[in-house]
């Protein structure tokens, strides 16, 4: 069956549905509904507010403790859990001290970086200014160069005109005679 025919037959009983929907209401949904179950990302915890966290705990309890009461064996495990938590607390305190030291070191490093950055920024600005100055200089030199090129062209044209003139042609023997005299007067001649 072609898709078009199928569509026609499929929607026959409820064609009136089309275009009948009005915008619905916004229903908030807790953030953990957006993540697959048992995924190993802690994003839920990152994004949960207190109410959502409580809701999640209640749901975990409903799955883990469906009977909603603690068995005696479970209760006896609590002192052990408490002891473990105390150990963990001591561990975290040590870790806190280590982190404080690390923070001090990072602050020193940060001060050093700040000073370096100030220096580098100053250098960068200096280079930028220098580059802009050089760009201006380059532009000025290019302008001057264009002026010289024009001048050379003008002089070459003048020279060509001079060589074509009647007076230049008439004085040609005179210039030849002059050169001969100079050659004879030269010390080697």
């Amino acid at each position, binding site marked *: 069956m072609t898709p078009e025919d199928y569509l026609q*037959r499929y929607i026959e009983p409820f064609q009136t549905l089309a275009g009948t929907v009005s915008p619905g209401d916004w229903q908030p*949904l807790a953030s953990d509904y957006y993540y697959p179950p048992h995924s190993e990302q802690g994003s839920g915890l990152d994004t949960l507010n207190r109410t959502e966290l409580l809701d999640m705990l209640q749901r975990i309890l409903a799955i883990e403790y469906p009977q909603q009461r603690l068995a005696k064996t479970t209760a006896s495990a609590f002192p052990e859990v408490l002891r473990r938590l105390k150990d963990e607390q001591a561990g975290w305190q040590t870790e806190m001290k280590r982190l404080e030291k690390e923070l001090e070191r990072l602050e020193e490093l940060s001060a050093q970086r700040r000073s*370096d950055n100030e220096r580098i*920024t100053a250098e960068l600005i200096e280079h*930028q200014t220098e580059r802009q100055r050089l760009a201006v200089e380059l532009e000025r030199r290019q302008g001057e160069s264009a002026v010289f090129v024009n001048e050379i062209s003008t002089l070459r044209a003048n020279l060509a005109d001079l060589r074509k003139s009647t007076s230049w042609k008439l004085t040609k023997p005179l210039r030849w005679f002059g050169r001969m005299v100079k050659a004879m007067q030269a010390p080697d001649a």
Partner: protein
Amino acid sequence: MTTDIESSTNSTSVVDVIIPVYRGLAETRRCLESVLAFPQRSACEIVVIDDCSPEPELSAWLSTLAETGAITLLKNPVNTGFVNTVNRGMILHSDRDVVLLNSDTEVHGDWLDRLRRCADSDAMIGSVTPFSNNATICSYPCFNQDNPLPEDWPLATLDRLLAEVNTGLAVEMPTAVGFCMYIRRDCLEEVGYFDALIFKRGYGEENEFCLRATEVGFKHLLCADVFVYHQGGVSFGEETKALCVEAEQRILERYPHYLSLIGEYCARDPARVLRRRIDRFRLIRSPRPRILFITHTWGGGTEKHVCDLARILEPIFEIMILRPTGPHGVSVEWARNGEEFIVYFSVPYDYPKLLDFIRSLEIARLHIHHVIGLNRQILQLPQDLCLPYDFTLHDYYPICPQYTLTFKDGRYCGEPDVDGCNACLTERPALWGLDIVTWRELLGKLLSDADRVIVASQDMETRMRRYAPNAHYIKLPHPEPALTVPVPHAPPCGELKILVLGRLTPIKGLYRLEACAIDARLRSLPLFFRVIGHADRDVRQEPEIPLSFSGPYNDIELPLLIGRERPDLIFFPAQCPETYSYTLSYALVTGLPIVAPRLGAFSERLADYPQAWLLDWDAPVTECNDLFVSLLESVSGSRAEASDDA
């Protein structure tokens, strides 16, 4: 962390919006026109830097715009590369926050005010990036993808929606994304500028900058209430990918943990919540009526039909699909192309929430395709929601918990009486531990309460009526586009090549096919069996017996693969009553002889096909092979005549 941002905007200081320009007049015009169209409460200066563009029209247009005083235009005398250009802009006013905005972006509304409010919410915020259609980890609707803007949602509408739905929300990210990046001056002063030596031409410089900033305690936020359109790849075109790879290598040299940092963020995906909030609003505001499909996660023909139908209905309806995620969970996804919306519920605990959620979507109708793998509670959905529904039968699950009417060895069971079925269930128990009578009562009610029970073949309807006579059946063969399978016809070269299509299981005739090949070998028959697909378990193959498998394939490749095999005949060795058979649709357009069992949908679908031979589903393999040999002679004769005529 999702952060609620308190407004503490220091609105007196000026922000520089720096737009480096190299290529693309049309894109740059759109960008600048959008920036200039929306006055901001924050004082800002639009600084455009022409990095010696090779497009004179672009440079001329920028100069004209600068003359009006709308922008500050800087021109690089020579091309200095993206990073130098951006640095020049950031150095320009050493006391101002900056926004780096690519010239192929478009902004809307009070975008800058919102970005700034986010940036000013904490003294240790280094950078802020908005959502965009094309911005890797800030992409929307699909994360880490280059998306088109969602259908019916142009930039203006989408940005307004974000501003409304995600007001003041943000999440922390490992790095900003450079297409539109607000950087606080405090951060620039501490961290310095982009590294132009390493990342001269662009790509990666903002990531390296952010990693440097993170080292000294600055945070980078995704600002969830701003959307900026980003076309992408305008200045560098096809070079983009190579530049990205090069940039990544350079970052890794300095920060070997960079990829794991990004990988961890992607796995955690804390911005998903913010994207889903937008999705839900868009979905709720869609004027299209909604239908909820219920199906399994087993793939195969059911999945193909569900996807095909969702695609066909997409222009008129919003299709949602509910699937199991395990025995105690379901997911509901939005089946529109280009959307990634999906939510998860544990069932039965969250069943009331699931009902609320479905009601909030104003679902108008349900369509059950399959219930295998679902928590039993889901069967209550039609009743609890008081919604009409259809039920498409893709197999015999409502009357047979093994769903194919077969014994354990994959052969048709012949549909025994209640005792016979209960004996079968003792060996292979039904879902939820039900006996056959309870099972059929439970699912039979679901069928009889349905508006329509859609079947793809008459055979299926006849079979089902015996067990669920009160259901309202309608026959609708599956929708399929017109297929063409070009097969070169040539006389068999002394051996008949018999093609079998699809993934083979014992139910689909794997053992029967193997038996045919063994018989052909034992009797030295000129037959060769070739399967396009693979077997779900080990069987004997070539060179031991004349049987081989091509391996798994995609449906779209099937016509090409059939043509390439140049088969003489197509064989369906199925051992169960097929309800439709998609592979038969391909076989029917080849024009080749087809041999199939006289069982299920084959008989009616092949009734008008001129070259069909039907055998009893359990006919001895010798009978089957004898038919093939006789067909070899007739095929050779007819093709030889055809070639003579030609």
